[in-house]
């Protein structure tokens, strides 16, 4: 190794070391400061009025609900789009490939739209346009649909996570060997049968990877739900999709910027951040396990 080689190795290694150090510092400090505050009560109790004592149960439930609704609303659309891009677009005559180019461009751009713009969109479209429109149509006196709530926040997040699902689904389906399709079609299966009984089962681990990644992304986003449904302090659980809800990420934001007593809220904050980080870590782990299984199958 020449002197120049060593310089290159050390220089680039230093850059990487800084990145890795910052990552481990973030995880390490959170773990160190957050763990002492964790006990069972933290997970099952509601926060008290100062938000310093008590637990984070409503925020946990709210996050779970909004993510669940988001998945139910977004994944079918995303998977269908991925199926169409990989299976139907190339065979849909002259029109298909051209539309596919447009769809891919839209997906790439959707992935780059800032999350706060999704928040504006959720407010402008779901809450004010759809919600107020429903109120008008159903002749509700006070706004029932036309105000921020769980449903609108979920749908906003569903649009936000659409690109993740679409891209991974398309990739997973493309990785399925053509010989399988030909065999199915050869024995007389229709195209739809081939897709649903042969291609999709084989592509399933890859598609699930996308779903898990989308859940991870959606569960951590705060900006899109600021104006579409997240509540600052709401100890009761939502029992209607139009209710507002507490959310882990929003709770972290609210506690760290609006807390009356910063020092007192510090342990609670670190513990909440730890839960959020653990969630991100676990989902990431599940996604990579699924991905390696998908690679082995392909």
């Amino acid at each position, binding site marked *: 190794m020449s002197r120049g080689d060593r310089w290159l190795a050390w220089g680039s290694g230093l850059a990487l070391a800084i990145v890795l150090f910052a990552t481990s510092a*973030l995880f390490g400090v959170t773990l160190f400061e957050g763990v002492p505050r964790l006990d069972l009560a933290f997970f099952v109790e509601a926060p008290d009025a100062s938000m310093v004592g008590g637990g984070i149960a409503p925020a946990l439930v709210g996050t779970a609900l909004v993510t669940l609704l988001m998945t139910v609303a977004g994944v079918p659309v995303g998977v*269908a789009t991925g199926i169409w891009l990989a299976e139907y677009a190339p065979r849909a005559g002259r029109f298909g490939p051209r539309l596919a180019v447009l769809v891919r461009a839209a997906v790439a751009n959707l992935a780059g739209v800032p999350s706060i713009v999704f928040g504006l969109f959720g407010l402008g479209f779901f809450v004010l346009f759809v919600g107020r429109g429903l109120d008008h149509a159903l002749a509700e006196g006070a706004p029932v649909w036309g105000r921020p709530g769980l449903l609108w926040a979920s749908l906003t997040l569903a649009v936000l996570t659409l690109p993740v699902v679409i891209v991974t689904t398309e990739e997973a389906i493309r990785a399925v060997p053509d010989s399988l399709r030909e065999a199915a079609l050869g024995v007389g299966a229709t195209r739809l049968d081939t897709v649903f009984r042969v291609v999709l089962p084989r592509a399933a681990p890859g598609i699930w990877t996308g779903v898990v990644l989308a859940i991870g992304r959606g569960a951590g986003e705060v900006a899109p739900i*600021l104006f579409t449904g997240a509540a600052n302090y709401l100890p009761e659980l939502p029992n209607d999709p139009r209710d507002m809800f507490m959310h882990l990420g929003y709770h972290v934001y609210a506690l760290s910027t609006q807390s009356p007593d910063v020092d007192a809220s510090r342990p609670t904050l670190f513990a909440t951040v730890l839960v959020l980080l653990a969630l991100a870590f676990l989902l990431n782990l599940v996604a990579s396990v699924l991905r390696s299984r998908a690679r082995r199958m392909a």
Partner: protein
Amino acid sequence: MKLGRVRTPWWHRAIERLIALFASSAILAVIAIGVFVFRQAWPLLIDDDALTDQGGLASLFRPRLWPGYDEPLHVWQPVGFPGKLDVIPLVVGTLKITGLTMAIAIPLGVGGAVFLSEVAPRRVREWVKAAVELLAAVPSVVVGFFVLAILAGGVQRAFDLTYRLNAFVAAIGLAFAVVPVVLTITEDALRTVPRELVEASLALGARRWQTTLGVTLPAAMPGIAAAVVLGFGRAIGETMIVLMASGNAPVMGLDPTSSARTLTATIAAELGEVTPGSDHWRVLFLLGALLFVVTFALNELGRWVVLRLRRKLRAEEVAPVSGRARRATATAEVAS
């Protein structure tokens, strides 16, 4: 090729139609975002009564002699009489923070990618890539909190800064979000550089580092440019980190140790408290529309570069030349 006709049940066709319908959802979503964000800002542009106490639409960009000030200034101070809605300080704040972010994130991201693709052994690479992926999965509100609670105090003490929260610490926080983008795309670009180029350079007697700096990096330049453009788009659009770490004072000027307020943080902090339909509300949506257009353009630019690069690589792959002949041509190209 049509063999005996397979009969497709009508409901198979129906489901296929439905799938095709769903597939247009992404296009519809992008259009709807543009339309419904812009819709709330639209009255500003057509309504003569809009922004009258400001002096019309142009006042959003023009310095003005506000009561109580000595000279015409750009001021964003929407609460007060009169509400001062000049967006220039926000644009300056955004550019200041994103500029600083890129100054941190490009060396780290590109350097890290060089180490991964040129220096690191395979096993190390797998582990490090997993760690970078994990970093990319950290929610931005967590990074914002980390900067606010841990980093800002340390940086203030270390550099003896007047303000604890400022553009510089916000940029460090944003780098957490931008580095994974730059690093992964750059690494992909470096790894798709044709091996022939590298081998030719080494065979001509160039050292590894000379090859990396003189052949691999230039050959990967379009990909690296795309990485930078997409990272920039991410930095401009990131909300929670800057909202929590930048101090949020709409200061004019480019001092990195002073506070700054970005477009995204302004929307996030103020929209919850304004009257729907007021001028202030509409200006916030206008800022959102501006962000949408800017990130759209950056994305198209980055995508165009990547697509062109990929097409070039594919063209080289399918060239019907034998391995040895290909290597010889590549060598000749480098030598000439």
